[in-house]
């Protein structure tokens, strides 16, 4: 039941915010904060109580809720959690708190409706991470689109309409392709077994010829690759990230992109191991192109938010690489990168947002010498840039390092190319620091340094990155059992397929 509570608290909290905001926006903000915090505490409690998450041999899930929805069609309201979704859910609620706090003074118009959308997009994302009935998954997948669209289109910056529509159309089209694949899988499973089911654990052993599997897999893959985003379907991302309000950017970078990674991990490879294996050369090469291309483009930006946006393309390239390499090291690396990128990029968006609130621009030409007037904000920004470019001792480094190690076992060439991407990242990182923070204060900015509220957001994020960088073991322990399960199902099926071939 706790899984339902996760979603219900956010949904009800959002509605309450909207109603209350007519009388008091402050109360609305506090309700939003309370809802996200309550979920965060619940999820932490769940984690601590079950740490490290072990799964028995026959057991897929740590906890689940399974209600019949439409019986005839085999559709269930089935939420379940294992190590992977647990970590992502904790991340979701943490970044939820961050985005509520980050909007505290930024959003002044339509406060109630803003928080309604904010909490509902979080609810949708939680639904995506928890749904294990493919119908429910698609339901949540589409549902999280709408509040995000509103967040960008109403509270975004200059080109918000363009960005919001582009975001919507990309996700909508790719989502529909996934719907076709889900239904194809459903009917293939039915013709093989005579059972109608959208259940993840039922569908996971569905055998089909390779050429069919490849097509069905591609439907899923495209949907997730667009969200991830993978080059060349990434073009919605810089616009959406740049134009969204701070909370929107944090959620986009920290969570929405992760739903793509999660989908690849949870569905694409385990459901279609053979096809994924067949496809992995293409995917890994596109991943490496993404790493390099994202880094180079980030370096070329003069808009701070856009720069941070392009770094996401690069970092998520690592995640894609890790997932399609599919060995233990690379998968662990992908998971750490997912979390660390969520924190570090989220924090960078918070800081750029805080800066924009103060100086009303994101252009590097208008910044410079900020260190002299706002040392604490600048110091924090430098910390997260360092994390983002992979400074050892911080979370991102661990993730990317593990991915490179894992990739090395498979292909030296890809490893070298990806490692060059790490090198490029120093370029954009240093550019950010140099152009925005260092130098002399030519524009004579005199600004207020971090407010207490902002310190409250930033300090835990610094601690988490240090924790991930120095002692990531608890996170990895939580993931191990799930990873073994995913790898096991994938390899079993692949063996079965190869056995059938001989």
């Amino acid at each position, binding site marked *: 039941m706790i899984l339902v509570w996760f979603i219900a608290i956010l949904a009800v909290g959002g509605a309450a915010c909207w109603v209350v905001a007519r009388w008091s926006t402050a109360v609305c903000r506090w309700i939003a904060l309370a809802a996200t915090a309550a979920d965060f505490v619940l999820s932490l409690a769940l984690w601590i109580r079950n740490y490290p998450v072990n799964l028995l041999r026959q057991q897929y899930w740590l906890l689940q809720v399974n209600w019949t929805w439409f*019986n005839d069609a085999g559709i269930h309201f089935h939420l379940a959690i294992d190590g992977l979704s647990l970590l992502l859910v904790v991340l979701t609620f943490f970044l939820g708190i961050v985005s509520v706090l980050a909007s505290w003074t930024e959003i002044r118009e339509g406060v109630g409706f803003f928080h309604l959308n904010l909490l509902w997009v979080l609810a949708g994302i939680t639904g995506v991470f928890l749904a294990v009935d493919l119908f429910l998954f698609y339901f949540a997948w589409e549902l999280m689109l709408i509040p995000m669209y509103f967040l960008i289109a109403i509270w975004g910056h200059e080109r918000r309409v363009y960005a919001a529509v582009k975001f919507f159309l990309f996700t909508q089209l790719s989502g529909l392709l996934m719907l076709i694949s889900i239904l194809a899988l459903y009917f293939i499973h039915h013709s093989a077994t005579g059972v109608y089911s959208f259940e993840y654990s039922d569908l996971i052993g569905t055998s089909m010829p390779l050429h069919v599997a490849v097509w069905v897999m591609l439907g899923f893959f495209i949907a997730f690759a667009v969200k991830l985003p993978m080059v060349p379907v990434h073009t919605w991302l810089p616009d959406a990230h740049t134009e969204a309000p701070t909370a929107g950017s944090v959620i986009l970078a920290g969570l929405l992109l992760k739903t793509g990674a999660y989908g690849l991990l949870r569905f694409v490879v385990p459901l279609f191991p053979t096809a994924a294996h067949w496809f992995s050369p293409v995917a890994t090469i596109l991943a490496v192109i993404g790493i390099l291309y994202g880094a180079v483009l980030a370096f070329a930006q003069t808009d701070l938010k856009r720069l941070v946006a392009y770094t996401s393309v690069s970092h998520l390239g690592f995640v894609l690489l890790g997932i399609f390499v599919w060995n233990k090291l690379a998968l662990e690396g992908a998971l750490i990168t997912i979390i660390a990128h969520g924190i570090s990029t989220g924090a960078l968006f918070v800081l750029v947002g805080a800066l924009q609130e103060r100086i009303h621009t994101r252009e590097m030409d208008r910044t410079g010498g900020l260190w002299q007037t706002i040392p604490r904000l600048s110091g924090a920004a430098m910390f997260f840039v360092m994390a983002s470019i992979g400074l050892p001792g911080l979370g991102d480094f661990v993730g990317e390092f593990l991915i490179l190690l894992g990739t090395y076992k498979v292909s030296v060439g890809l490893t070298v190319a990806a490692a060059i991407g790490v090198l490029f990242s120093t370029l954009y990182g240093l550019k950010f620091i140099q152009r925005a923070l260092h130098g002399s204060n030519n524009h004579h900015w005199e600004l207020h340094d971090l407010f207490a509220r902002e310190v409250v957001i930033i300090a835990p994020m610094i601690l988490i990155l240090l924790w991930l960088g120095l002692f990531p073991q608890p996170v990895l322990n939580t993931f191990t059992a799930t990873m073994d399960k995913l790898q096991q199902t994938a390899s079993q099926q692949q063996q079965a397929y190869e056995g059938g071939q001989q």
Partner: protein
Amino acid sequence: MISGAGLVAILPLLLLAVTPVALMLISTIHRSHRMALGLTLLGLAASFGSLWIAADVAPQRVTALLTIDQYALVYFGMIIAATVAVAGLAYGYLEQHAVEKEEFYILLVTATLGAAVLAASSHFVSFFLGLEILSISLYALNAYIYSRKTALEAGIKYLVLAAASAAILLFGMALIYAAVGTMEFGHMAELMTETAGPNRTLLLPGLAMVITGMAFKLALVPFHMWTPDVYQGAPPPVAAFIATVSKGGIFALLLRYFYRLELHNYAPVVVVFTIIAIASMLGGNLLALLQPNVKRILAYSSIAHMGYVLVAFIASGMLAVEAVTFYLIAYFVTIIGAFGVVTVLSSREYDAESLEAYRGLFWRRPALAGVMTAMLLSLIGIPVTAGFIGKFYVVAAGASSSAWALIIILVISSSVGAFYYLRVIFALYAGTPEAAERSAEVAPRMAFGSSVLVVLTLLLVWLGVYPAPLLHVIRAALPG
């Protein structure tokens, strides 16, 4: 002769026929808009209630013309319920205008009777009768606000084109009759397989012309030209009526005709429908892209949506009838809701048709904007709305019979379609709350219309979240 059970079976139709007569008689004695609406709703409610009585004796063949089975009754229910909603919306709209109000309801219920006859028809004669009862009422309904030029244009245009299409239809019927010598669907099915030689050459043009006639009414590409003008000129409740009741009746007939005659075994017919479906999906969505007029957007979107329904229809797997019927119901709720918002926003001088009329609506009248958003999201096919389940069903029907090309075109064109719905949604939320407060307007009072909208929205969400009970009813209803 009609047996006793037969009379019970056509009770819903009889009640629909009695209502306009009663309205007419009472209006001659005492004119009252409120009473006319009340009587209309009473008649419709009685007819709706009698569906259960008729269901007890169904299936029944009533003369050679009508087949009252579970399938026809489901469509009766849809048609009557839609008319109730349209009548509710029309009340507030007509109050604003200086026209005779009572006749509107007479025409409306008569048109409903025509659509219901179509849904039950299994014979060319009842087909044509139903169609004409429906069309002739619609000519007048379209031009009801006769002081407006656009309304007159809509009426005339609809008159000319509908008459032309009826002529084509009639010609097609004649050719088929010449080829097989019967006008009754069941009989026709047997004879068609046996027909050979020169008679067979008559059959195909006949079928083509019948299909053309139906495609006109359904506004499928390339027979869609009248749609935007008529939707724009007609009063919004009437546009909603054309989009739902009129098309629903025809679709019910098309499905029955198709299944009785087993036309999915007839390759040329399937090819023609496939081309029409693709053209409608792409055409409707592309033409709507840059439209600044909300009524025209809804018109083009209705073309595209009929294309989607055709996909399920062509797929013709076991899911097809279910998918078509459910999609139509979802579409009924959605499009009446959307036109309902247009109606409620319209004033005496203008109908709310330009996008400007919707700009910042959310900050002025959040509930109304919320309803419009829900309807538009349903048209896109976003979860929690009926449109989502509908689209899911259509894609499932396509996938179950491996019609991949059609589904992929559906997916692409519906993504294109999302663009123009988003434009409307964006307009609803544009601007800032402060700006809206300054230009706060006094909302015209349309209590009745607003409550219809509330019911439609609840229905929309209910069907989007828990359609199981409705699906249960639909599943039992196969066209006989």
